């Protein structure tokens, strides 16, 4: 159980952060998610689907919480440093770090549905059917939200950013 928790608690917590944008509520959602998962663990028939299952529970917990209280609009902070420099010079690493932080901030500032869909697609690498399952929406709705999110991200990353990026 310890291994599973160490693998999935950060994932569920981060997904909960994308749902709520509030670290305290995200903790609350993560705890409740694992409690519900533990109680209903016999319902999970395919261990391979564990991640999608946990995310789905987290989304349900988030919806339950949202019904009870209004969500505070607090921005997600405290990103970690890149653990390895990737063989880059300190200047390059710092510049890349800045780009990564910026793209995360851009993602977090998207409208809620687009943010959740883009997070599950780009960070958790779920396909649109899995995302639909997690969020309880149709595949077409996932595709539409994902297209909008990508378009917005491209618009925010203008030509100047790209040129700088390509020079590196």
């Amino acid at each position, binding site marked *: *159980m*310890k291994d599973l*928790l*160490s693998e999935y*608690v*950060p994932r569920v*917590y*981060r997904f909960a*952060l994308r749902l709520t944008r509030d*670290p305290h509520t995200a*903790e609350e959602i*993560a*705890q409740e998610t*694992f*409690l519900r998962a*533990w*109680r*209903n663990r*016999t319902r999970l028939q395919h261990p391979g689907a564990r991640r999608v299952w946990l995310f789905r529970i987290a989304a349900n917990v988030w919806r339950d919480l949202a019904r009870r209280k209004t969500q505070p609009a607090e921005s*997600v*902070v*405290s*990103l*970690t*440093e*890149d*653990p390895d420099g990737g063989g880059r010079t300190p200047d390059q690493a710092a510049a*890349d*770090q800045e*780009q*990564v*932080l*910026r*793209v*995360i901030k851009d*993602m977090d500032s998207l409208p809620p549905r687009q943010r959740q869909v*883009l997070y599950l697609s*780009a*960070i958790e690498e779920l396909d*649109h059917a899995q995302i639909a399952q997690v969020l309880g929406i149709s595949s077409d709705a996932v*595709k539409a939200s*994902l*297209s909008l999110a*990508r*378009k917005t*991200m*491209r618009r925010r*990353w203008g*030509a100047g*950013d*790209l040129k700088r*990026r390509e020079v590196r």
Partner: protein
Amino acid sequence: MTTPICAHLDAYIGGWLSEEQRFAFEAHLGECLTCAAELSKQECVDRLLAAARTQLEPAPPLLAGRIERQLSSSPPVRPVRWLWAGLSAAAVLLLGLLLPVAQRHVPRLGPVISMTEPPGIPTEDRTRPDMEDRQAALQQLAVLITSRSQRVEMKAHPWLRLATIPAPGEPRSARRRSAAKQKTPEHQPSDIEDGKEVRITRGLPPYNARAILSRRTLGQRKLSETSLEPAETSGRPGHKHSET
């Protein structure tokens, strides 16, 4: 300049195009600089997002431990055994269906008799032989009525409650009972109805109750034999019941 096929850019990025559509769009990419630029931007964003996977905020350090403690203290929930749940439900259903039938065909058993000494009797009277006899007679009555599957509730404190339930074969509902009463008035006591409360006073000793109850039972003769008539002390000397 955008063309209708440019609208397929996001579907191409998402991998949602058919093979034919994909080939067509890739051919279009070679001609459309706008789409090629957009695709290039998207690839850049995707790379950054992929790099962000390792740099997203970590979970609070104590969260996993807290969840682990919570789970270990949480009692395990046993999975529902559908077979047992189904069998139990079927058993309850069967019982619910059969119980009314059984009640109709099985003779009513077991009286509810609670006999206490009437409080209206003064302490000095309780030592009198006739009072003791009355109590004994009441108890005997109770035994006899019990043996005839009559249900009697007698609460002598402070009221004597006579509640008889019709024996098997007698009409049960109040309406049918009253109809039966009209037809056969000779079988019903004239002075008391089912469930009527009779206050125990010194002038209405237990033998009155016996008289009423004896009409309701089949063993009238036996009752009269076992009852004791407190002829001298009740102020009703020589009182005999019609049933005897």
